[in-house]
């Protein structure tokens, strides 16, 4: 009897020691963005879908457990070596099943719905993370993911720091007395630039950085008549590092669309990485960098670096 009890104690001690620090004893249940209750028993093999989801999962310390990501997940650098599960809206269900994940964390809008249904049938916990493109939804995202991973206190700490960053950005915006306008150029093909109109993610980061979108009366990313850009008189031109193939200020401002703009006069060409266009934990920092590039004379203070912003490629001017 005695020896049996002591053996049990040894086994129990061994099991507890073998358990990952974050894992709780029992499964936890989460109500996801679609309203389904999903039971999560094991977070040892996670598939993340959506750039912000991936960043938050890494920031919460679960990077080691991530087995695959979608193609919108490009940060931190470690994800580049992970297998891909394709584009978030066109997930291949069998590709996901083949990875034998114990948890799929996918941003709202991932799909197709049939794929999610099939994954549910294959008894793979598929949790849809609520989406939203403002500060409040970002904080909700962080807390939600932390809860799903059973580390609510870590999530609370992260949310608090992100909220501070956004407050700091709001304080920066208050320092801007005369707002400047900018045009976001997605691509330049044959001299006709594809620019960001109203209701775009570029306009979103502009607003956070206290910059007006010079392009009005057009929705979405569309090729624009060069004259219309001239008429809009942007004071800065923002492009994407990944897209402009080293197109320097000289070449850019030689194009008829930009040659006569105030931006050309001040040689204000700002290249930003593509994550500036997605809403995630690094967004406040992105807004600060964009604002200090557009308003260099204000010497806006930097935000404190956070664990989830390190290894970020520097924006260039």
């Amino acid at each position, binding site marked *: 009897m005695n020896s049996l009890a002591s053996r049990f104690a040894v086994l129990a001690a061994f099991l507890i020691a073998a358990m990952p620090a974050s894992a709780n004893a029992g499964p936890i249940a989460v109500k996801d963005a679609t309203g389904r209750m999903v039971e999560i028993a094991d977070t040892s093999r996670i598939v993340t879908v959506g750039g912000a989801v991936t960043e938050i999962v890494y920031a919460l310390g679960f990077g080691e457990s991530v087995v695959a990501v979608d193609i919108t997940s490009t940060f931190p650098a470690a994800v580049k070596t992970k*297998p*891909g*599960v*394709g*584009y978030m*809206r*066109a997930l*291949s*269900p*069998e*590709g996901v*099943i*083949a990875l034998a994940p114990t948890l799929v964390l996918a941003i709202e809008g991932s799909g*197709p719905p*049939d*794929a999610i*249904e*099939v*994954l549910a*049938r*294959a*008894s*793979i916990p598929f949790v849809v993370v609520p989406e939203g493109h403002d500060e409040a939804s970002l904080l909700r995202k962080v807390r939600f993911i932390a809860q799903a991973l059973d580390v609510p206190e870590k999530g609370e700490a992260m949310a608090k720091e992100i909220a501070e960053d956004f407050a700091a950005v709001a304080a920066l915006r208050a320092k801007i007395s005369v707002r400047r306008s900018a045009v976001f150029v997605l691509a330049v093909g044959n001299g006709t630039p594809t620019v960001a109109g109203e209701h775009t993610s570029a306009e979103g980061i502009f607003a956070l950085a206290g910059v007006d979108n010079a392009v009005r009366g057009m929705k*979405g*990313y*569309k090729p624009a008549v060069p004259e219309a850009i001239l008429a809009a008189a942007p004071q800065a031109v923002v492009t994407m590092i990944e897209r402009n193939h080293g197109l320097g200020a000289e070449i850019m401002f030689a194009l008829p669309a930009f040659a006569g703009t105030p931006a050309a006069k001040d040689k204000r060409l700002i290249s930003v990485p593509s994550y500036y266009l997605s809403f995630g934990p690094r967004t406040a920092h992105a807004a600060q960098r964009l604002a200090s590039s557009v308003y260099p004379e204000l010497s806006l203070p930097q935000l404190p670096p956070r664990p989830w912003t390190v290894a970020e490629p520097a924006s260039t001017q």
Partner: protein
Amino acid sequence: MTAGDAALGASWRRSGGTRAVLGACGVILLLAVFASIAIGPVVMAPERVLSVLWNGLFGMRGTAPADLRDAAVVLDIRLPRTLLTAIVGAALAVAGAILQGVFRNPLADPGLVGISPGAALAAVVWIVFGGLVAAHVPAAVVNHALPIVSFAGSLAAILLLQRLASHEGRTSVANLLFAGIALGALASAGTGLIVFIASDQQLREFTFWTLGSFGGSTWSRVALALPFLLLLFAGAFRIARGLDAIALGEAEAFHSGVAVERIKRIAVVIVAAGVGASVAVSGIIGFVGLVVPHLLRLSIGPSHRMLILGSALLGAALLTASDIFARTVASPAELPIGVVTAFMGAPFFIWLLRRHKRSFG
């Protein structure tokens, strides 16, 4: 047994041996179907696949996580995909055979002569505007109406093609191809316009329409397309004999007792149904309708009853095999299947053009 049947067709010797060729097509199809169900990123032994299929037949999926997983993979992912690929392959090949019979022209392929692009344009217009105009209409309705809308698009394209390409019941190869190019250009111009209006998400779906994919195959898609494709197959056998007579010329077919206008009307409707539904569930997949009937005519002859049966078998086998290739060659990513069929079909088309250069003049 009637004169149009196999007994008569087989009375005259062909080098291939009609029955042997059709039998071989059937065997290839069975192998391709099984391979398609057995191969995928989740590795499973063939006997495991068979037992999951067998149990699934009786609605048994098991309870263990591994059983549920394998059941989902085989029954919910691979089976509907394989089935959809096979029936779309059969439909495209049969539609090609019928189109060629009606136009008396071996180059009529639904993709090449603008019918599939017409269907795709209708589908894209519907996706963008159907959702826009009827914002309160649920997405399910938009999706269910899709095959009907593509059907209308392909029907319009065929009728236009007949108008443009045929003169007094005769269609020259040049006219057919010119009219097809014009229609295709018109359809892609229209689609380009839609792209300009479309949202980013709709844009992503655009490659689906232009290059085809079976990536999103589900049982509901199979159910959506099946009635249209059955209409094609049922109608095809009814007009097979009439198409044989039309090979003599429309006047001669009428002389020999065929109601030519009726046959042509049926052909137009069923081809539109088959191509429209195929495009609705899998996008534009070219060249299947060109390659398959041509290969079969070389081996079993042009008699349409056998040609249609053979086209259904070989078309299904060819597209199923192409899909296996498309989803394994760059796994886990997927090649658009239209790219695979185009790489097979385009060189074939060029060869065909060269071979017929003189007679096409």
